[in-house]
């Protein structure tokens, strides 16, 4: 037992030290990592977005010309259009599928854990191996997908090699890979809904459909809000599937913002325009998130009055 001979101030300091000292020390390495690899680069790229730099010489201040060059580039607009299509496609499909799966898997039957694991597996599978396997599935000559479709009399589709289909193929892959994560979160949300509400609804004569629309969805809305917001942000940052499978082709039909940004920075060595694009993307995501945050009052339960 510590002796109580210390002065009140010292004991207060000691208590702060006890509460914060060790924890602070332990999170210091993490903060150093974040600082060096996230916050400092984020600030530097803001500066670089107003500069000309090819990585080899010294950066030169060029004002807003990177931003105007990016905004005048037709490829950028094409890329933005693709990105919006990609975001709409993945978020809507992903959330719907995840919700459907969560509803199906939210029951106490034997072996439910196995099913939950199966649908979660793609989330923890590295994108490199997913892309490799899907690249084969999508192969126009040997791919299973075409083989299956052919059974139903569908003409072979060139998937990744056809500009009409390529973006859709990437969306499909991304949804398959990502829906497990949202499913788990929605499942947690579903399990947070007290069962007695359903019991009383049943007593009042509500059928399954009514229970879903009037109870489940509203009670799940905070979780749905989180899922939609996070999926949207992630979808805007899509990169790896495009990098691994199509490199933006054919004919720029899968060129998305982050991949185009990467190409500008590390293939064309145009760090300035690439940084400008990063900040434009940041503004887009910020704006959309703020709008969603405002809109939540309209549709998220218990949020209207704060």
């Amino acid at each position, binding site marked *: 037992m510590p002796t109580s001979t210390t002065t009140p101030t010292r004991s207060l300091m000691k208590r702060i030290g006890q509460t914060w000292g060790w924890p602070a020390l332990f999170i210091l390495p993490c903060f150093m990592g974040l600082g060096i690899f996230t916050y400092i680069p984020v600030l530097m790229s803001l500066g670089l977005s107003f500069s000309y730099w090819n990585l080899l010489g010294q950066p030169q201040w060029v004002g807003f010309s990177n931003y105007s060059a990016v905004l005048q580039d037709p490829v950028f607009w094409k890329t933005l259009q693709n990105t919006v299509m990609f975001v709409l496609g993945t978020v809507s499909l992903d959330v719907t599928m995840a919700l459907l799966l969560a509803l199906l898997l939210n029951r106490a039957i034997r072996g439910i854990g196995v099913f939950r694991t199966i649908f979660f597996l793609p989330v923890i599978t590295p994108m490199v191996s997913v892309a490799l396997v899907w690249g084969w599935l999508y192969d126009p000559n040997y791919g299973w997908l075409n083989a299956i479709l052919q059974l139903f009399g569908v003409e072979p589709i060139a998937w990744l090699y056809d500009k009409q289909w390529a973006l859709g193929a990437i969306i499909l892959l991304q949804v398959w890979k990502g829906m497990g994560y949202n499913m788990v979160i929605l499942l947690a949300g579903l399990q947070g809904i007290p069962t007695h509400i359903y019991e009383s609804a049943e007593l009042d004569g509500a059928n399954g459909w009514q229970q879903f629309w009037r109870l489940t969805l509203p009670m799940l809305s905070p979780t749905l809000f989180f899922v939609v917001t996070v999926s949207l942000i992630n979808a805007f940052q899509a990169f790896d599937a495009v990098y691994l499978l199509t490199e933006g082709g054919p*004919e720029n039909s899968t060129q998305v913002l982050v991949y185009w940004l990467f190409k500008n920075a590390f293939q064309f060595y145009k760090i300035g325009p690439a940084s400008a694009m990063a900040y434009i993307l940041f503004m887009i995501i910020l704006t959309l998130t703020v709008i969603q945050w405002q809109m939540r009052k309209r549709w998220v339960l218990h949020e209207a009055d704060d």
Partner: protein
Amino acid sequence: MRSFDLIRYNLQRICLHRSRWRLLTAGFQAISVALLLCGLILSGCQSDNSHSKKTLRFTMWGSAEELSVVKRLVLDYERLHPEIHIELMHFPENYFQKLHILIAGGLTPDIAFVNSLSYAVYADNDIFMPLNSFLESKRGPLKRSDLFEPALKAFTWKQQIYAIPRDVSNLVVYYNKTLFQQAHVPLPSQHWTLTDMLNAAQKITAFHSSTQHKIFGISFASQPPLMWLPYVWSQGGDLFDKGFTRFRLTEPSGIKALQFYADLRNRWHVAPTRKEVGSASMSQLFMQGKLAMMVSGRWSVPVFRSQAKFDWDIAPFPKGSAGSIVGIDSSGYAISKTTRFPQEAWSFIAFLSSTKAQTALAESGLIVPARQDVAHSQAFLQSPPQHSKTFIDIIEYGNPTHVPVRWNEIAEELGLALEPVFEGTRTAEEALKKVQPKIQILLEES
């Protein structure tokens, strides 16, 4: 916080005695601080063990096989020069990105392996040292005449040589003898023409049209431009004028050549379309016996030697109106302008370019050695392919490939413009005339 308390509670329960718990936490804290400090100190004073040696940092890309040859050479060199340590950095993927970032971070390697298609931007930014004086020194270990002149030309920027070529990288036509013989088509001669090639491709494709798997006459690659430039050069066209001031592909010769190339796919159907290729590569199709002719470089030899189950050989690229002209690019060694040890770096490069070292590299089959004596030795000429000498014979007609500083962006624009041409949905003339102003701007901004 709640879970933290829970863990603490459980730990306390396990430890039973409060005093012992105290001792335990104190001990744990002391150990973690010690570890943290050790980590900081170690990371501070790492890599200072070879203080007495001169360390040369050397970056390269390449396959595992190439790497193992180079590693052996490095060991040999260090044995001969105990005062020098070579720090070999191998980046198998995205090499030039990484090199750029090393340079941006002030960590330019003393010796960098570069390619003639990628070094313009470094020469333009004064990253490497001109090597003429080393090469022209009378008593030096390596002389200009040891090497193929076109390879040196590929590394010449404003009359200065910026890298010592390791290889001469040019293109030939690989062909599947068995497919030719089955269709009773005469094998490609040393003087065959583009018309001969088209005829052969048509006959072979037609002969095998009844078989289950489609067989294609000739390979098709839309990227990089170096793969289709032989068609342009051999028919008298070119990408740019000499000083990179004008985009020349819109001239009738260039348009005609690119249209001919696209027609191989879309008009004559002797080259596979994007859909027919799918996720396969041209060399996979060739090795599966589904491709009669394939335009490729020396790098295909090792894999064909070990895996092709049919008779194959090589022929020069077929002649067009201007002859048979393929590009000569090269990979080689450059010295950083900021290195502390230029003499030592040069001595290492000279060692890598010695007959012995070049022989070791040539034996892998991957490269056409830049050193003339090794190129004419058995190490390189061994069969298959029976006509290995073709690689050397065509050097004098080759076109040392120079590219402008913003080549990567130009190649991107060009690739994008030509995609519909290669898909058969637009003519070469339309596409080239449309992209011409954009490329002209990129040339003028360089």
